[in-house]
């Protein structure tokens, strides 16, 4: 699967309160959550972001609360993938569980600039910077996580397991 899109850049330690502030958590409706995506980090972000865009961040993206509303809001806003140097662990597992593609790459995080067009080869973990003509590789995804992705997320995976047993 090749994902292609325009980049928005964020820094270190982007926390879940920045991704989706708690004051909006009295709902779990994806569309409504998407309308407030990143608004405390960048007030205009919800109006600027377009379906197909990508987020590139520094270290520890998604730190803080366990709220699945964070990856849900990102996905619902049409963001295709998030690339960072590292992810907070609950955010990491939530993303795989709900099927939001995320990649860890120091190189990509450092060298990609806001507005660059990139292409992510999700299966091979190769990130191509179309604007700059560069290529970076992401850390390989553990086999179990690949299994989750190909099942279509944790719920589909669990469904299969329940049928088998």
């Amino acid at each position: 699967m090749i994902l292609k899109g325009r980049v928005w850049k964020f820094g270190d330690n982007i926390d879940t309160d920045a991704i989706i502030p708690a004051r909006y958590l009295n709902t779990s409706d994806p569309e409504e959550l998407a309308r407030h995506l990143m608004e405390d980090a960048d007030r205009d972000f919800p109006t600027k972001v377009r379906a197909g865009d990508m987020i590139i961040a520094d270290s520890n993206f998604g730190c803080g609360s366990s709220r699945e509303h964070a990856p849900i809001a990102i996905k619902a806003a049409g963001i295709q993938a998030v690339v960072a140097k590292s992810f907070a662990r609950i955010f990491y597992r939530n993303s795989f569980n709900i099927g939001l593609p995320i990649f860890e790459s120091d190189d990509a995080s450092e060298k990609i600039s806001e507005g660059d067009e990139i292409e992510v080869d999700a299966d091979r973990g190769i990130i191509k910077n179309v604007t700059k003509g560069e290529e970076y590789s992401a850390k390989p995804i553990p086999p179990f996580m690949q299994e989750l992705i190909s099942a279509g997320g944790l719920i589909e995976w669990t469904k299969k397991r329940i049928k088998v047993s």
Partner: protein
Amino acid sequence: MTITEKILAAHAGRDNVSAGELINAKVDLILANDITAPISINEFKKIGAKDVFDRDRIAFIPDHFAPQKDIKAAEQCKMLRDFSKEYDLDLYFEVGRMGVEHALLPEQGIVVPGDLVIGADSHTCTYGALGAFSTGVGSTDVASAMATGECWFRVPESMKFIYYGTLNKWVSGKDLILHTIGDIGVDGALYRAMEFEGEVISYLPMSGRLTICNMAIEAGGKNGIIVPDRITEDYVKGRAKREYKFYTADKDAEYVDIKEYDCSQIPLTVSCPHLPSNTKPAAELSSVSIDQVVVGSCTNGRIEDLRAAAEIIRGKKVSPNTRMIVIPATQQIYLEAVREGLAELFVEADAVFSTPTCGPCLGGHMGILAKGEKAIATTNRNFTGRMGHPESEVYLSNPAVAAASAVLGRIGTPEEVL
């Protein structure tokens, strides 16, 4: 093996596991709250399971926006209530019986030593204080585990934190963990187990241990854990609702890193905006004026915390420039505070004494900050906008420092008011 590895191995039905492995393990308890459970409920229905794996092992606790703060919150809380009725869940806690989840479950003996607990809330790591493996997961993880009784884990590397020496006056578990996060950073223990030990931990009361393990997540940790001992035994004896087991670490257990702290060098510590790792000694922050003080939360809303705040504020008044909100974390703590005269003492000091709720801790309700306002709170996060307006500020401290700051109307230390 470390204590974390031993508990994971036992629940995976294995003799041993090692760091980095992916395993499936049985869970003893699953929890979710009024924010996270609605997603879990919807996802659970999609699985098509006939029933939940065990009606006695799923705890639903409406605490974040409860007592229901608006119509949307009421609808979410109702989903928990309806699901609990439909599946006859034993551990649903209605308003009036509830408390902040991570204070309530250990207090009621629902989590016990040796347990493997997952919760759709990041501070689920709190129960490591009892010698349990507990970690925050997402709502979908909870949905899957409600059907199967199992969850997938990557076995974490362990990091050891040793505290020796003697604690300075008023320095508590909160200061130790804030100091530690200040030292290693908010991703200093990313993906790792944080094991706390040393002579200071060996005499630290359970309340302080719960505070320390509660904030493991603020260093990126997967879980915080303390090997159980006499203090653990005294705490769980008489309240444990199930049989429990004490796991210990082997002598040759592997740690990726060991940090040692001389506690005589640890001052009363405050985390400044907007990261828990942004720590400074409280004594250096006396120029920071304070609009709101919050004593409460799963970090520091226990009776010991209320007593510490009360000791400072007894016979004094909250500064006219400041408002103070005291929130006991559970109904039982509330009752104890009333019986001990603490409720009266706070009200006479011009503080608000609230029913249990997460409330302002996550900027939910019951004390939201306006633009430009500053608060000092005994909670655990001070991210941008955490307690209200994106241009407000939150400082984190222990209850004694928070109470002293309420009296002074600025950040200060207990010595300045006593």
